[in-house]
């Protein structure tokens, strides 16, 4: 296991390095000079050159990359051009909305997806299975931002139970949590539908294995065999998909946060894109990359912990 963990850590670090190079390269070819954008179209070329120099934009790319990574490692992400404030706290305050939102959405997706998937696999080929599978097809086809708008129409416009959007801040924890419920459902519904299908097919595969017949022959009840033997064996693909899903959740949050006017990372990124606030976008994308890659790393380790075959050296 130790060798496997070490190998994963090296791979994790290498992937992060490549990711940072790609993000830097893509953002570096951004058309439009950041200094020109900040000063506006009427600025003199001398003023633009002076600001470029002050921001370090006139340095060669390798030096700018080194300064960016060096700063990030020390926790200094630089200044936002548009907000004129340090990027670190800006991103941190947006994460205070986005992270709970993503976690709530994932919890919703896992609860609904696992339950529905186990139910469908248990009743394979019967009416309940067909209904769950049909519902999951519709769930996968529904764009999360449309579902979000539909939820707003139902709960805010028609029933007037909740406000249509906005975020009161964590000073009022109950209202803040309440403001995240509809967004979390809208965000998690598609993932719940996908997870339902993955859980069902992984379970059905496990149910067909020889060890299931052995367990039943030993006198273990059907239900107990399902929970004790089939589900643990189906868990590896389920966990892998959940890791990928979290990445999709974070991306989906960009759109859903816009529907509900939540001051999260997605909204910050989108505003920074229209402000041409390159540094904020760069750091935001990099942060998302770190989260996604880090999550895959954790999922790999979790799968290896569950399934010893995965950590055996390749034959």
């Amino acid at each position, binding site marked *: 296991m130790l060798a496997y963990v070490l190998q994963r850590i090296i791979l994790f670090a290498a992937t992060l390095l490549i990711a940072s190079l790609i993000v830097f390269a893509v953002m570096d070819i951004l058309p439009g000079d950041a200094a020109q954008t900040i000063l506006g179209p009427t600025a003199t070329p001398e003023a633009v050159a002076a600001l470029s120099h002050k921001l370090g934009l006139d340095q060669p790319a390798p030096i700018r990359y080194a300064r960016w990574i060096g700063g990030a490692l020390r926790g200094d992400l630089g200044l936002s051009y548009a907000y004129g404030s340090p990027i670190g706290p800006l991103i941190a305050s947006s994460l205070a909305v986005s992270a709970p939102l993503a976690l709530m959405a994932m919890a919703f997706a896992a609860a609904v997806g696992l339950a529905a998937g186990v139910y469908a696999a248990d009743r394979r080929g019967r009416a309940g299975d067909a209904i769950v599978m049909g519902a999951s097809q519709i769930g996968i086809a529904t764009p999360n931002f449309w579902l979000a708008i*539909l939820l707003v129409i139902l709960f805010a416009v028609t029933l007037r139970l909740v406000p249509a959007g906005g975020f009161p801040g964590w000073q009022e924890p109950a209202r803040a949590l309440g403001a995240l419920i509809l967004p979390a459902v809208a965000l998690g519904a598609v993932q719940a539908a996908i997870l339902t299908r993955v859980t069902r097919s992984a379970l059905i595969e496990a149910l067909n294995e020889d060890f299931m017949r052995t367990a039943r022959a030993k006198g273990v009840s059907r239900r107990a065999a399902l929970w004790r033997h089939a589900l643990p064996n189906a868990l590896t693909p389920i966990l892998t998909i959940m890791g990928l899903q979290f990445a999709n959740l974070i991306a989906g949050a960009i759109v859903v946060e816009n529907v509900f006017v939540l001051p999260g990372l997605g909204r910050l990124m989108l505003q920074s894109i229209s402000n041409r606030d390159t540094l904020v976008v760069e750091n935001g994308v990099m942060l998302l990359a770190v989260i996604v890659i880090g999550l895959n790393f954790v999922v790999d380790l979790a799968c290896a912990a569950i399934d010893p075959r995965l950590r055996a050296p390749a034959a």
Partner: protein
Amino acid sequence: MNFALRFRPRGGASLWVGAILVVALVLAAASSLVWTPYPPAAIDVAHRLAPPSAAHWFGTDNLGRDVASQILAGSRVSILVGVIAVGIGLAFGVLLGLLAAFAKGLIEDGIMKFSDFVFAFPALLTAIMLTSTLGPGVVNAIIAIGVYNVPVIAKLTRATANSVLSREYALAARAAGRGPVAIAFDHVLPNIAPALIVQATIQFAIAILAEAALSYLGLGAQPPQTSWGKMLADAQNVLYNAPRLALYPGAAIALSVLGLNLLGDGLRDALDPKLKARG
């Protein structure tokens, strides 16, 4: 044997429901090229937010534009984005996948590691990053979504091509002195085509969803071009006055995606009975 049962096509209900929905989408796009009830971008403020009627089937939006005409015209953008983005994915993905399968060794490892890496990035995030660099617009949205499709197709091509290459007929062709290009065209591509077609259908659906999301955010289709995602963004501004405006474009997206996904599932069952047997 029951005649009707014997001739039941293998795809089953999902193939047919999917095919009908996809044909409807294509017909809507095709007809909008020659005819829409009104010009989709024609503003008529006097009749703004009109309810559905014989004159305006789905009513009008907050600028008095005919919603039915916009829905028809929007299908064009969805299809355009889907076809080109999947085309980009197929062109580069198949090439890279075949290269990996034939070259083996370092090239295969490199291509696959790169694919895994891009694959870990959600389509929408890639698209947002690229449209933020290249600027908003349908063309850039297409490129962004197409780029995301490349590793998906590359991974599938490599995996399926490898299984074909390990078969006796591929080995025999190699032993007979045929080159990799000839083997790729005569043996590999025809055998992996069904898997590619199924995946292309699914990627088409993802492309439609991604385009709608980008246009909703204002990073995709730009005025006066209409798109389902942009219609949803417009509808959100008048949600309290005319919530129904949010129903049509969303339903159009969902039905198109549902159709493509069902068609993909149905085709998989019809083209590869082994997969169906596994449940």
